[in-house]
């Protein structure tokens, strides 16, 4: 119940934040612009639109997740609003989870809006060529769904950094770094496979499984080229995301619980 109160309040805070609208505006602008760019190419207009559209949803989603995510706790500490909240009868972990859910709500709404934006642009494109709206590739929703799960993971990571780092910019750098590395984990694993030393191999493997495998969530290319994304893959990746988020939140909770708010 208290978790929900915090979540709703966090959602309220986010939707009264100007950053959110600016980012959303630019994302929709980019998706809209793809319609213009598509007219420049010969054939495969929908490919260009999907490329640009999914990329925009992903990039702006990550920006929203990182910039609102790192502020989630550190802003409460910086602005000292946390003193009063934690003086109320609420365990700290509930506050943390409430904040997380609140931001997820914000991100889910945003991603949905951007997704609908992309769908509309694709539908307009089909109509322009005299096709039926039904021609719009339904797999874009699978890609958007996995983007959303990825954003959930990124948000959890941002939240974790903001529970112990006192500087927002430092948390932002950490999160962005982990986001980039999270997309290169495949390479880390392959390097591990090629190594001769068993200990070194073990270390690399450990790092590989510790890092978030964000590449799991990237099916943008498969959607564009019409390669099938199986329901088993979708559910496996969803499970992976949820397990990873649980771990990150547990760690954040443990850090947060022990912390002094000077």
């Amino acid at each position: 119940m208290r978790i929900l109160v915090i979540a709703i309040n966090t959602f309220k805070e986010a939707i009264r934040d100007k950053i959110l609208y600016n980012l959303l505006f630019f994302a929709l602008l980019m998706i809209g612009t793809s319609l213009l760019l598509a007219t420049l190419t010969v054939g495969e207009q929908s490919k260009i639109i999907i490329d640009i559209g999914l990329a925009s949803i992903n990039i702006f989603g990550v920006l929203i997740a990182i910039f609102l995510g790192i502020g989630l706790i550190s802003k409460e500490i910086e602005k000292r609003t946390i003193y009063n909240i934690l003086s109320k009868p609420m365990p700290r972990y509930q506050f943390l989870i409430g904040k997380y859910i609140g931001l997820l709500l914000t991100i889910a709404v945003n991603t949905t809006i951007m997704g609908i934006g992309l769908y509309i642009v694709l539908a307009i494109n089909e109509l322009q060529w005299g096709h039926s709206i039904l021609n719009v590739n339904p797999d874009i929703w699978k890609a958007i769904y996995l983007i959303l799960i990825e954003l959930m993971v990124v948000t959890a990571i941002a939240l974790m950094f903001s529970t112990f780092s006192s500087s927002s910019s430092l948390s932002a750098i950490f999160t962005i770094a982990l986001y980039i590395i999270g997309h290169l984990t495949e390479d880390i694993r392959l390097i591990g496979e090629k190594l001769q030393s068993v200990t070194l191999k073990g270390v690399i493997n450990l790092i590989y499984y510790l890092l978030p495998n964000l590449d799991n969530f990237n099916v943008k290319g498969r959607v564009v080229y019409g390669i099938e994304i199986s329901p088993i893959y979708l559910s496996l990746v969803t499970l992976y995301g949820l397990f990873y988020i649980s771990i990150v939140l547990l760690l954040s909770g443990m850090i947060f619980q022990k912390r002094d708010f000077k």
Partner: protein
Amino acid sequence: MHPTVIKTENLTKVFKIGFRGRRVTALRNLNLEVKEGEIFGFLGPNGAGKTTTIKMLIGLIYPTNGKAWILGRELGDVEIKKRIGFLPEQPYFYDYLSSKEFLKFYGQLFGLERDELKERIDTLLTMVGLKDAADLQLRKFSKGMLQRIGIAQALINHPDLIILDEPMSGLDPIGRKEIRDLILRLKEEGKTIFFSTHIIPDVEMVCDRVGILMKGELVNVGKPTEIIDAKIKYIEIIVSDINQEILIHGKAMGFTICETGGQVSIKLPDENQLDFMLEMIRSGKGRIVSVVPQRETLEEFFLKKTGERIS
């Protein structure tokens, strides 16, 4: 005998500062008892450890050593917090909320039911005089208004113990008086109030007992009149509806006069001038709001105290 509301036993806090973990003792072996129905003033200069103590009582930081009980329960018990009202130092709240939303938010954290909450919000807004600002966002509030809405949120759960951290700092004399009145009213309702301050007159006027904290150690506890013997520096009279001629006259006599809103504060440097000035105000049909003797500042007082202790 009144039951004990706050009890601390050798409460100690050591902070580690910086990367090297330099140890700084913020509070050393605090032993304190606050009884039910008391107004307890926690007096000390900035950095003496007042806020550290309060944060430990509230659960924002953890004691390095020692124990404390609130309302009979040991620190760390979430149940305690249901019966405490807390106002942080220089309160920072979600400024995008309106007064009503703000109180509703905290009420919900205590699990108050919708109807009960609505009624409670109305009562509290009236009590702190913010009825007209019910739908105003907190970011548009003045310092005094913020302090008052802060007290309102501290009271939302009908607390038995109210802890206020520097409730009067940064307020003008009129704002201070309002807070003082509020504290006295809460005492009448049977609440226990524990508040910290670094301003001596605040303590003198409302507290039943005072504890003086210096450099992390409790140096003295007792009735304000017993332990505070600071010299009067000047007397401040606050009046309303005053005749302008009297003000001009007062200025001519070397009094400091400043007007805020409809009220005027006049500072008399000498006690002996008080009768004369009051006479003049009455003859000019001015309404006297308050007469407050201003003593030396705490720093000056403490300087004197430490001087005494050394000698």
